[in-house]
């Protein structure tokens, strides 16, 4: 799935002609097809082919979605967030910042889905939507930490300030997770017997295969989304950096095309450039890939 951005004909973009203009590449197209095929197989295995559990019945099928989401979101997503944050504080390049931002957003998505699927599973098996189980509590706190990270990213428009502060938050959030984990484990563990673990009960061969195949499938989906999200974030930065210049250049071109670039003409052109920057070609470019992401998110 790709969203192609048409460069505006009037704006001079020679310097960026080599830069990517879409969130997709040949790699993501191949990966996307693979992910889709794997997801179809995974759903067939999880929902139809694999047998129901002896104790949980069909509710166990939710685990084939729930556990891989938890692991890709919690480990892969938060791990990459930590790596990106450390990388940024060390190297100070946009790559690490955008990697952390993209990973954090996907971690938020997957953690949210983990909570939803966990609650849906808890209702038939535990009898309640919410149980103060250590892992559930940890996931909830992690979800809030990731919301905080996103809030920080939207709190300022200055890219350097945003990158630096969100890198610190990303690093702290990741460093806090083991402590929260330990505290909630003790908190509940001291007063409650072990919770139901799908791996405690002996899984039969097909169930085990479905389980691990689901893990791999979600990891592939995660990588596919990550590449798209990263490229979108990168394009966003480019748009933010160039939109004003482009708008000014475009207005100048209009003024020249209208002829007689006298003193009044150029003054008018400069005046309108600032005012129309928000609705110039820059924002048109910005909305196109944004629509692409929403679609990506929905497809997962």
């Amino acid at each position, binding site marked *: 799935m790709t969203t192609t951005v048409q460069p505006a004909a009037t704006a001079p973009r020679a310097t960026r002609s080599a830069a990517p203009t879409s969130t997709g590449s040949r790699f993501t197209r191949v990966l996307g097809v693979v992910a889709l095929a794997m997801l179809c197989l995974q759903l067939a295995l999880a929902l139809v082919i694999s047998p129901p559990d002896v104790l949980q019945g069909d509710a166990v099928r939710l685990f084939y979605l729930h556990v891989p989401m938890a692991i890709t979101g919690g480990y892969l997503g938060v791990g990459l967030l930590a790596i990106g944050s450390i990388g940024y*504080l060390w190297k100070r390049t946009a790559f690490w910042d955008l990697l952390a931002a993209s990973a954090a957003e996907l971690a938020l998505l997957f953690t949210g889905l983990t909570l939803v699927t966990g609650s849906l599973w808890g209702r038939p098996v535990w009898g309640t939507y919410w149980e103060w189980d250590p892992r559930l509590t940890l996931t909830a*706190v992690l979800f*809030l*930490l990731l*919301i*905080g990270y996103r*809030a*920080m990213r939207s*709190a*300022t428009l*200055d890219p*350097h*300030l945003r990158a*630096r*502060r969100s*890198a*610190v*938050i990303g*690093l*702290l*959030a990741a*460093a*806090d997770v083991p*402590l*929260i984990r*330990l*505290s*909630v484990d*003790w*908190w509940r563990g*001291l007063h409650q017997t072990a919770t139901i673990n799908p791996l405690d009960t002996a899984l039969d061969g097909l169930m085990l295969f479905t389980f691990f195949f689901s893990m791999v499938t979600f990891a592939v989906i995660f990588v596919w989304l990550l590449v798209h999200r990263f490229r979108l974030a990168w394009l966003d930065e480019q748009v933010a950096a160039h939109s004003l210049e482009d708008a000014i250049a475009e207005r100048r071109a209009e003024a020249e095309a209208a002829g007689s670039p006298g003193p009044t003409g150029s003054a008018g052109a400069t005046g309108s450039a600032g005012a129309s920057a928000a609705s110039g070609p820059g924002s048109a470019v910005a909305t196109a890939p944004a629509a692409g992401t929403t679609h990506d998110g929905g497809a997962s």
Partner: protein
Amino acid sequence: MFRDALLVAGKDLRIEVRSKVVLNQIGPFSLVVLLLFAFALDPDRGFLQEATPGLFWIAVLLSALVVVQRSYALESVDAGRDALRLSGLDPAGVFLGKAGASFVVLMALEVGLIIGVRLMYGASLRGWPLLLVTTLTATVGLVAAGTIYGALAAGLRVRETLLPLLFLPVVAPVMIGGTRAFGAALDGSSAEGWRWCGLLGTFAVAYVALGMLLFESLLEDS
């Protein structure tokens, strides 16, 4: 570094002594919180006494939030942040100084809160060594984390709303550890309480270290 820390802490505390914001506003605020808990939970049925550890730590957490906000509000006027950045003080020292001043303020508030729960909730203060050590370690952790997150939110237009969202989930281990250790002390089962103290100590050490390490990045920006 420690000299710089003393300078910054001295500056913050001197402002507090002169402005009396803690005495006139933050202290009464934490007592209002204690009062609200009594309204929420029926005081005649012993709920308050049972829930004292949890209520005490929620009151501390909310007070810590206000203390951190106040600590950075001091510098938001007259380009105080820029002045601090240009002063050439060691960033780790600035961190320790700001955290140290907040520590003194928060400890004072906690003493008031302890007296409050003793008198108003009728909590007995058995196992005081554990109570004391818990309070000290938890407070170090709270002010260290608070000082980092305060700096992260400082200077932004949305700082008042962003800080609670960033700060409160992160200090979940302090809330759990403090509550459990207090519960253990009041029940007289100290052994379990000391284990929680260990967790609080780990949290405190981790955040003091991270703060000293990361504060330089945070002082950089405008």
